[in-house]
């Protein structure tokens, strides 16, 4: 026959792989840059997490400002919520758009069990146990009909469930419809009432810690491995002995349980809850957190929660937002413009262009513009950016024009594009000063959206997400 069935005796040794050995050496030599990262990795995750919790606890002691405590509380319960969503989306790979309903379910359960409505005043722990297990069971029941679905179909079904919940609580007399549930009890642990924001901050910290520990333990077990296998290839998982339908239900149950507990803590601090607290905006924020941080990565989701929640708060202050706005533009120019000498040309050109425009504008329409000032605290901006006396319409037009101009600039090439940047940047500054800076809350969301888009382009896996491959 052929000589292939009898391999040459001096051929490569079966099962030996020189490349592995050589590659191993190579990696050891090039490790200097990664040493810090490796050192971090060598610390057991439990210790890293303990350090994080200790840091947060110290923050709670250190700050006496209720505003900071409240932001901390928000970050923590959002982190817990996002970790629950991460079970369903990041690990089991199921696109669940009805997740907020369980957050609401937990909150309304607390509202019914601990409020003047029915004169029930359960101890908080009892309520939490009921909510934790109850939400898990409801999660299983709700996902029973959708257990065979995945991808877009599952998303549609779960979105529908979320909508049902919203409509139910918004219309039932049991939940007071759109008037919401009011005067909920403060959390009550063995007769001890949680009343101050700081105490709630610590309750949220405990919730966050428990959720993280439980989910970490589950993820590092056969169940977690099976979830992630299911995400990668449902059919292979089933043929290798994993009961995929049960695993899906289990993922939903864990997500629902975490969401319900977060809802309970949220409701008890809010005192009054309304159907709109549990609507799409919360879902979108949660998905932003999970995707920004990196779906499937627990530290990533925590970082995502911190970035989004604290980021939104920071940006709600106009001065911070202005600083960030100009800093991001400057950083973008420095990173993007090549060769480097275009950076001073474009920035200098923009300011020079601004002086000319504002001189002409103030001279031509003295009524419509604020006088150019060459003094005062806002020297740099108001001296070259035209400020309208009545910015409502002009600002809106400028904003619209800015979007068109940015899209137009992306179509240009070479030096023309760089020169065209000058008026566009001026328009951006004009739109900012006359429209965006006056509506801080809207602007915060626009800025955050822009940041998210940029991040997704630069790093599609999220901040700490693992590189993912779909098909190779």
């Amino acid at each position: 026959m052929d000589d292939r069935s009898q391999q040459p005796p001096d051929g490569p040794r079966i099962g030996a792989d020189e490349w592995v050995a050589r590659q191993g050496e190579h990696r050891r030599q090039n490790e200097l840059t990664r040493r810090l990262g490796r050192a971090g990795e060598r610390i057991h995750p439990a210790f890293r997490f303990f350090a994080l919790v200790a840091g947060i606890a110290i923050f709670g002691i250190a700050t006496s400002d209720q505003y900071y405590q409240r932001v901390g509380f928000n970050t923590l319960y959002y982190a817990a919520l996002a970790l629950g969503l991460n079970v369903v989306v990041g690990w089991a790979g199921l696109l669940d758009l009805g997740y907020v309903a369980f957050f609401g379910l937990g909150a309304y359960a607390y509202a019914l069990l601990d409020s003047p409505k029915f004169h029930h005043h359960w101890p908080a722990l009892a309520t939490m146990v009921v909510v934790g297990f109850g939400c898990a069971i409801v999660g299983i029941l709700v996902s029973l009909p959708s257990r065979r679905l995945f991808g877009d179909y599952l998303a549609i079904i779960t979105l529908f469930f979320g909508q049902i919940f919203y409509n139910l609580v918004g219309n039932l007399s049991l939940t007071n419809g759109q008037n919401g549930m009011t005067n909920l009890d403060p959390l009550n642990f063995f007769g001890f009432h949680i009343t101050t924001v700081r105490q709630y901050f610590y309750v949220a910290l405990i919730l966050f810690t428990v959720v993280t520990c439980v989910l970490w333990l589950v993820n590092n077990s056969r169940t977690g491995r099976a979830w992630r296998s299911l995400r990668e290839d449902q059919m292979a998982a089933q043929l290798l002995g994993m009961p995929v339908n049960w695993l899906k239900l289990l993922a939903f149950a864990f997500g629902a349980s975490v969401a319900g507990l977060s809802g309970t803590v949220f409701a008890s601090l809010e005192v009054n809850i309304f159907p709109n607290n549990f609507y799409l905006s919360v879902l979108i924020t949660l998905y932003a957190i999970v995707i920004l941080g990196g779906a499937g990565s627990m530290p990533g989701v925590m970082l995502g929660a911190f970035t989004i929640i604290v980021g939104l708060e920071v940006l709600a202050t106009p001065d911070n937002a202005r600083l960030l706005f100009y800093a991001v533009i400057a950083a973008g120019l420095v990173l993007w413009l090549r060769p480097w000498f275009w950076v001073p040309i474009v920035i200098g050109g923009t300011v020079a262009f601004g002086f000319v425009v504002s001189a002409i504008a103030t001279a031509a329409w003295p009524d419509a513009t604020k006088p150019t000032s060459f003094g005062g605290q806002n020297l740099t901006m108001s001296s070259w950016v035209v400020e309208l006396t009545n910015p409502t319409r002009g600002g809106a037009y400028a904003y619209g024009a800015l979007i068109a101009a940015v899209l137009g600039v992306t179509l240009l090439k070479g030096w023309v594009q760089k020169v065209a940047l000058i008026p566009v940047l001026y328009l951006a500054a004009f739109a900012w000063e006359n429209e965006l800076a006056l509506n801080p809350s809207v602007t915060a969301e626009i800025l955050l959206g822009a940041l998210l888009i940029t991040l997704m382009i630069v790093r599609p896996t999220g901040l700490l997400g693992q590189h993912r491959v779909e098909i190779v």
Partner: protein
Amino acid sequence: MTALLELSGVTLHFGGLKVISELDLVVSENEIVSLIGPNGAGKTTVFNLITGVYDPEEGDIRLDGRSLVGVVAHKRTKLGVSRTFQTLRLFLNLTVEENVMAATYCHTRSHVWQSILRTPFQRREERDVRALADDKLAFFGDRLAGYRRRQPAYSLSYANRRRLEIARATATKPRLLLLDEPAAGMNPVETHEITELIGRLRDEGGYTILVIEHDMHVVEGISDRVVALDHGVKIAEGSFETVATNERVVEAYLGLRATEEDAAR
């Protein structure tokens, strides 16, 4: 030798197309049987029938005397059937190690609450799972060793992915191992290695192996028996020599003309 796997009169249609008709197939304990046939002959469909992707419309599939018909796919794995895939279906974003560990799901028993509480039983089981994964990966020598074990599966070369598929399949503790074209896309050295490896799987692992393969050198090197399929019908069965020289097999592979020329000669 007792029969481990028995297919009797198995028939399956896809719409109006008869994919498998009246197929009888017996694989005895500790035997290596090759399933050959041209593309579209229904070889992978036979695997899909045994593993529970499809259920036969007629006939029976028995594993160690127990009928598998109607049993859910993941329970069949528990009963001792495991397979690899022709179109590699690894869990690409899991590490090499995790791929193997995930496949132990069917014979581990820790509940979720035991995992949360890290009970002694769960910890013991987890240690066993790790040891098992070590063992299964060590079967391939250096190929899946060293830093590679903590790399995601997508970083592996094509041949190593095939090896990992086999390691993963054996981690379910199967009695019957179904290998779907284990040598596809491999170079001659690797093909030779796979041939040797399949023999070792039977001798050291104690598995009964049913293998689909197109490379006739591999088939010749490993098979106790060869079964040839064409259009879902068994056209020949026996030793490699008998099947390879069978007129209908040659016809199925090369067409009628070749057979006639052969006969004329």
